[in-house]
């Protein structure tokens, strides 16, 4: 993977916005995988499946989405799919979406880095998340 040499322009990596993301905590990680996913989605209104954590993203695209959420003042929880290979595979299949990060709001997939970037640029992100 090309995480150390990302060719894309990421918004704002130089200064540090206030971190609005926290690590998601599963109540029970021994359930069948689909139940784990459904429980996480039910538990958190705004959930980001990402590589790494909000304060230590492991991929430029994940960092980009975390940054956008931080800058927009949107509170969110993040699940590090690098920490759990079963979840890494299962969420892709559950979502029918091949890549991370994935931003989910109210149990629905909003999109990855490109879509979240575009929604933020055209002012629709906060509306999508229901803050306005």
């Amino acid at each position: 993977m090309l995480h150390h040499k990302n060719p894309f322009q990421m918004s704002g990596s130089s200064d540090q916005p206030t971190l609005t993301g926290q690590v998601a905590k599963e109540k029970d990680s021994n359930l069948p995988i689909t139940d784990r996913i459904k429980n996480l989605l039910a538990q958190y209104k705004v959930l980001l499946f990402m590589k790494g954590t909000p304060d230590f993203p492991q991929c430029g695209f994940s960092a980009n989405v975390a940054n956008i959420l931080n800058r927009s003042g949107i509170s969110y929880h993040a699940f590090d799919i690098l920490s759990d290979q079963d979840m890494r595979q299962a969420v892709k299949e559950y979502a029918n979406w091949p890549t991370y990060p994935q931003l989910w709001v109210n149990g629905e997939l909003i999109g990855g880095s490109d879509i979240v970037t575009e929604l933020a640029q055209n002012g629709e992100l906060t509306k999508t998340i229901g803050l306005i």
Partner: protein
Amino acid sequence: MHPFFQEIELIIKSGLTDAEVQISDMTGNLDHLEITVKSRAFQNLSLLAQHRKVMDLLAGKLKSDLHAVKIKTIVAQ
């Protein structure tokens, strides 16, 4: 146009017959492409659904020789 770009464009147009497609190579290695697609088929769809239409067409390519794409969709009227 690079033959690989032509192939990608043909794949997209096989599913979105009215599509206008623009492709650029972001790395010089042809493995990260920026693909802009304009189609009437995107009308009344969420951004995710618009991207899904393109991603579904490219699914086979993404499993083989295409590592990552940056997709931009434009709704044609």
